[in-house]
């Protein structure tokens, strides 16, 4: 029993470029907030009783729309969703009123243990039903629409009967959730499974995209010497990902685009140069719309 579209969307992020907020950049960004259109924070990092993180959240919410990005809900888990964690998420949504809330198509815990990694799922009818149930449960508990993020994967499962875009499209159709389209993850997954990223992009439910992530990745090699891409958020956005962004925006029109950089942080001006590049891509899509 699914309840497609029964939960209201949050007010939504502006069609601008945003950044994941890191402590090292917080003061610089807050001093000139107009440089970015929104910021994203990991929900789990906001789950504290008080102290400096609450003070930062207050300043952030006074300056920008907030994208709240969960990394620990384990929506793909075989275990039931963690009720205490759902409550913490609901409290965050109520208190800080984010413009968007997102989580991952992955699992990250089992048997009460938490692994702090986004682990891959076989794409079967059984996992599809489970993921849809969990997405329904999250949307009902939080009282808002969830944006579900496509994963970066490296292993595949013999048991899979659906491809990843088809799986995500079906989750979206059944639950009415939105999509957080991570173009770096799409690029990485396609490279790691020998697929065409442009075809995968076209097969996704692009009408439901509520936020886009772009990022850099590391290139390693598998046991045959073929490239094995690692989604590490520690490098500038890759060229192929910029090209995917242009293709996506030409199809959908302007969208909120987040530069995701969690590791090996560059000086703020370098990050802001990528923000400006993303804003230019969004503007180009806007102009294309006006001309059409």
């Amino acid at each position: 029993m699914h309840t497609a579209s029964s939960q209201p969307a949050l007010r939504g992020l502006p069609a601008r470029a945003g950044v994941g907020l890191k402590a090292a950049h917080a003061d610089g960004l807050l001093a000139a907030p107009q440089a970015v259109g929104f910021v994203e924070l990991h929900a789990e990092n906001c789950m504290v009783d008080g102290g400096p993180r609450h003070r930062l959240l207050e300043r952030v919410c006074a300056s920008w729309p907030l994208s709240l990005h969960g990394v620990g809900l384990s929506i793909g888990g075989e275990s039931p969703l963690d009720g205490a964690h759902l409550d913490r998420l609901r409290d965050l949504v109520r208190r800080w009123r984010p413009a968007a809330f997102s989580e991952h198509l992955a699992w990250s815990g089992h048997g009460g243990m938490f692994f702090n990694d986004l682990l891959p799922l076989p794409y079967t009818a059984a996992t599809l039903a489970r993921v849809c149930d969990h997405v329904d449960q999250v949307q009902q508990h939080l009282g808002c629409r969830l944006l579900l993020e496509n994963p970066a994967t490296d292993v595949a499962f013999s048991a899979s009967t659906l491809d990843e875009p088809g799986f995500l499209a079906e989750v979206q159709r059944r639950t009415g959730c939105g999509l957080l389209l991570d173009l770096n993850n799409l690029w990485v997954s396609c490279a790691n499974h020998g697929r065409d990223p442009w075809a995968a992009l076209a097969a996704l439910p692009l009408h439901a995209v509520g936020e886009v992530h772009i990022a850099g990745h590391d290139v390693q090699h598998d046991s045959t010497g073929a490239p094995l891409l690692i989604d590490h958020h520690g490098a500038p956005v890759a060229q192929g990902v910029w090209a995917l962004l242009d293709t996506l925006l030409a199809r959908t029109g302007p969208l909120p685009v987040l530069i995701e950089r969690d590791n090996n942080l560059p000086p703020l001006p370098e990050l802001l140069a990528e923000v400006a590049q993303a804003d230019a891509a969004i503007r180009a899509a806007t102009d294309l719309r006006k001309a059409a």
Partner: protein
Amino acid sequence: MTQATFAAALLDPDRPPPPGLRSWNGSDPAQRFAVHRNNVMLSLVDALADEHPVTQTLVGADFFRAMAALYLRRHPPRSPVLLGLGDRLPDFIRCFEPAAGLPWLADVARLEWLRIRAAHAADAVPLRVPDAATLAALQDPAQAPRLRVRLHPSAAVLGSAQAVVSLWVAHQRDDPLWSINLDHPEAALVLRPDAEVLVLPLPPGAAALAQALLDGLPLGDAAATALAADAAFDLVHGLALLLQHGAIVQFHPPAEPSP
């Protein structure tokens, strides 16, 4: 493949990768699975190291990371909120044989954990000057022993048989460590009255008083505990010290618990 099989192989490098994995080009799925195995341990060890900079400096990164990996296998995180991941690290270190020659190490780890805890504890406004009614109650021999003293939610006491407070402070200032005599007891109050987490060295009596108040004892019993710890303890000085540090939030009579 079940997630239980996958999870067991993630945490135990001696297990084979879970069955049912494949790759598009026939490359070894075990190598691809190893990316996750490494991610899990690396990200958790990094999180623990970030919270314990002085502990890590004292033993070196290689020792710390090897110890952290064993700790995390024994006590995997139970919550997606990773803050305070090291809550059981001091107890683990106490029983960790390779650290047996470093009797101060467990308490340094505990001090760092208490600092993390204090940073993210609930906010509260410290009481700087007690009101007239409280001062009158404090001077009334019938009322004073029954008073309850609510400390700041961030407050905790570290007591150690070793000079771990000096050791920790020296690492904040690059003081030469040879000037510290490690072999004597020290105590500190860890507290975040406002934005900054403070580590405030306390004499033994005041430390015992603060711990007894944290344990919920009324003021009279807390003062007796402090006197037992230090025969020279003076309650007025002890309370003044806690007030001055911003550690006290409220005095209230027993019949009227704090909201």
